[in-house]
């Protein structure tokens, strides 16, 4: 099962990964992805807006897709919303599997689809300028790799 959460609070990536494998001896590989706020170009803060009624539903659909595609032993996906500062963690994907190939692929897939199919919008405060982040063609291409 892949647990999903949308939350304002920070998360502890190491604790989430440890929780997945605690007491189990059937897991051979854990892949953890943490996305962080980069402070380049004078970024003061990044605010993530989301669509509360839809967010966890969309994240659960993406998680279910991953669960159906790869033989996974467990997973946790956390996406934050609200105001974040440079260096703050934004998103966490932890995937446990018997073998490393499935864990790496599923984690990459989840990130690619979260970026293009979960209802979050980033707003950047760069001090003298404020703007909504535009969707990237490279993210669409990354997501399209997994179409079938």
């Amino acid at each position, binding site marked *: 099962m892949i647990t999903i959460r949308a939350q304002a609070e920070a998360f502890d990536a190491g604790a989430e990964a440890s929780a997945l494998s605690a007491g189990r001896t059937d897991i051979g590989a854990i892949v953890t992805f943490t996305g962080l706020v980069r402070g380049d170009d004078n970024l003061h803060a990044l605010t993530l807006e989301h669509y509360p*009624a839809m967010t966890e539903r969309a994240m659960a659909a993406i998680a279910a897709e991953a669960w159906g595609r790869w033989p996974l032993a467990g997973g946790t996906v956390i996406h934050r919303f609200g105001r974040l500062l440079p260096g703050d963690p*934004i998103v966490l994907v932890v995937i446990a599997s018997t073998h490393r190939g499935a864990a790496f692929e599923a984690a990459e897939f989840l990130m690619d689809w979260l970026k293009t199919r979960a209802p979050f919008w*980033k707003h950047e405060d760069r001090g003298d300028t404020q703007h909504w*982040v*535009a969707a990237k063609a490279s993210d669409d291409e990354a997501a399209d790799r997994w179409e079938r």
Partner: protein
Amino acid sequence: MELVYFAWVRERIGIDAETVTPPADVTTVTALLGWLATRSAGHAAALSDREAIRVAIDQDFVGLDATIAGAREIAIFPPVTGG
């Protein structure tokens, strides 16, 4: 039906939600967007570039040709940028 707006769509329209009753001949998302754009200058500015608009009906993404019949909540927003 309830309409909800996010990100710059919300900012340009100036409100985050409204309840509307479109005319009977407005049956698709495309028609809804066309009708909404006539409601105010803010609506018109928010919806002028249809390529930049995404829509969810009752919390599921839909295409612009989707029917709005039976919809309770329609969300209108820019392409998502989370992750």
